[in-house]
């Protein structure tokens, strides 16, 4: 009896926490269907006549689709290359660790500790000189490099879970390293690779600092699309909300469809 009461209480608390976390997104969704006048009403309106005008305004002449296409290409491209590079790296670290492997792993993670703005000017100048400013290729490279430490870490922990004996047995059978990776490791670690890739896609999709600062008219992603509605002059709250809904909807949908894999990836190694 007491137990069920406790678990019900926990459930209630979980719902409350979830609502609290989801509230900004829910409010954004609600505001997107308001008129600009209803959006600024004080106190905020809970009951109103929903309109689609803000969505129409947010997509008219703004090139939403080209921003969305850029987001898709950049997040998929960055993830693909990150996984391709991380796969052999994680293999080496998991199955052929050397004296410095542990230190290397920590060092890789430390590259995530520098605030991006600290590297803005050098990266900007390098990109200008090699002609990568305002290109999708440039954003793919940056997102790939940014996600690489995380992707390597995640793959590393998935690989650690695979019994080394299986790989050793194959080695005895005369299988070379490439075949070992391709025919054994790839299928065995497929779920892990999938959840790593999903996380990397989401991170690249939401990245805003570089996609705003390194793009001009061509390679802007949806993060750059949203900023055009964040304004000090004029009323843009409903339009900003509509634009944000349009920007997060694809990745939210994608995230909820693949939730099972994602949760497994995120909690991996947390409970052993």
């Amino acid at each position, binding site marked *: 009896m007491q137990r069920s009461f406790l678990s019900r209480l926990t459930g209630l608390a979980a719902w409350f926490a979830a609502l609290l976390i989801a509230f900004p997104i829910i409010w954004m969704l609600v505001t997107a269907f308001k008129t600009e006048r209803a959006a600024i*009403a004080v106190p905020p309106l809970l009951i109103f006549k929903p309109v689609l005008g803000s969505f129409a305004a947010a997509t008219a002449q703004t090139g939403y689709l080209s921003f969305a296409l850029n987001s898709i290409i950049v997040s998929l491209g960055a993830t*693909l290359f990150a996984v391709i590079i991380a796969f052999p790296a994680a293999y080496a670290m998991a199955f052929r660790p050397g004296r410095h492997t542990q230190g290397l792993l920590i060092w890789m993670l430390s590259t995530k500790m520098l605030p991006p703005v600290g590297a803005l000017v050098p990266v900007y100048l390098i990109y200008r000189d090699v002609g990568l400013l305002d290109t999708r290729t440039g954003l793919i490279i940056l997102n790939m490099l940014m996600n690489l430490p995380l992707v390597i870490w995640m793959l590393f922990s998935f690989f650690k879970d695979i019994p080394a004996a299986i790989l050793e047995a194959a080695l005895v059978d005369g299988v070379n390293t490439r075949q070992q990776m391709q025919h054994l490791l790839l299928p065995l670690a497929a779920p892990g690779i999938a959840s790593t890739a999903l996380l990397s896609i989401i991170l690249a999709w939401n990245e805003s600092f570089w996609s705003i600062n390194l793009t*001009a*008219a061509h390679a802007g992603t949806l993060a750059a699309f949203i*900023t055009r509605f964040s304004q000090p002059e004029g*009323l843009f709250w409903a339009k900003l909300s509509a634009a944000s809904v349009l920007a997060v909807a694809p990745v939210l949908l994608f995230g909820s469809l693949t939730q099972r894999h994602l949760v497994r990836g995120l909690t991996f190694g947390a409970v052993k």
Partner: protein
Amino acid sequence: MSMRRAVLAVALILGGGAGAVRAARAETLAVAIVNNPDMVTLQKLSPAFTKATGIHLNWVVLPENRLRQRVTMDVATKSGGFDVVMIGPYETPLWARSGWLDKLTNLPASYDLDDVFPTVRDELSYKGALYALPFYAESSVTYYRKDLFKKAGLSMPAHPTYTQIAQFANKLTDKAHGVYGVCLRGLPGMGENMAYITTLVNTFGGRWFNMKWQPQLESPAWHKAISFYVKLLRRDGPPNAASNGFTENLALFAAGKCAMWVDSTIAAGSLYDPSQSTVAKVTGMVDAPVQVTPNGSHWLWAWSFAIPSSSRHEAAAKKFIEWATSKQYIEMVAKDQGWVAVPAGTRKSTYANPAYLAAAPFAPLVAHAVETADTKHPTATPVPYTGIQYVDIPAFDGIGTSVGQDMAGALAGRMSVAQALKRAQRSAKNAIEAAGYGGP
């Protein structure tokens, strides 16, 4: 094998995509702008320009602060990412001096440069040469609620003083019904609270620097002005005034929560539009308040188009900015959206047009405010700088931001006015000396 092929295919698609984008750049201009109602109209009408000239436009729309950073970085490193940039009177002379902008000469006779308000033209010039063309200009005024004034038996003079504003605010505040006597900017930022506070200090007789570039933030005029501001907003302002910028106050006034509001003329378009404002029929407008001197009591800002010297399409860019700031464009907006929506504050001919005067009752006041905003004499006593709501030196960006935080701190009650001014004086002194001005 198939995996390798898939990787190759994706790489080709990505590479090919980037190549295709580059090929399409030939006759396309990258135009960096802020987003506001006037710019939305410009984007909507721009296909007419493309049809007439064959020049395509790619808009990069960013919020004001980010636009300033993003464009500065592009222009300063001569990256050539933008062909046309939207800047204001703060940037124009500074960037012109650094050689970042193209001089605008040989404008066609049909452009009629003499039709542009001289105060606005001067703002966009450096050493007598023009470096940007104004798209719209704004000043600051006092908005007030005619219905509330009538109910309280008050009448708003055409040229109010701050003493009067404080008296009215005291009488009109009705916190039980959520009506506040006065709304003013409190959100920290060079372009937010400091734009307003600088006009307030100017008209109270204060200045940022004396002729030796020594900061004057602990002078009696600053003390009086800031004490007045803090006391007034705490007594008669909305709650959490330190987090209200232009947009928040616009929302409050449009929702009927403010009896008075001193801010940009650009708000008039929204406040008089019944689809955006609940007080469209009862909003009145008079000059910005004055205290001891009219100098610098209302600001001047002109969002303008300039061509970075790194642009690779300078001739096409010039064609575009001439078109977007021309009389013909203004007429086109009038035909499409009605006269009330035309870009304001730039051309005398707009204000001589009976159709505009009939549609925009606030027009003469805006013209008067723009024409009388004297950026060369922004204060009662002489100063070594120009600019009414800013000081036209590169270091002011940082000084304005930091002092803005101190002022918001005083408003929010985190420190006293004297403490805030002491901190502000110290940081302004450090910054101005580090920038190489004045000194011993």
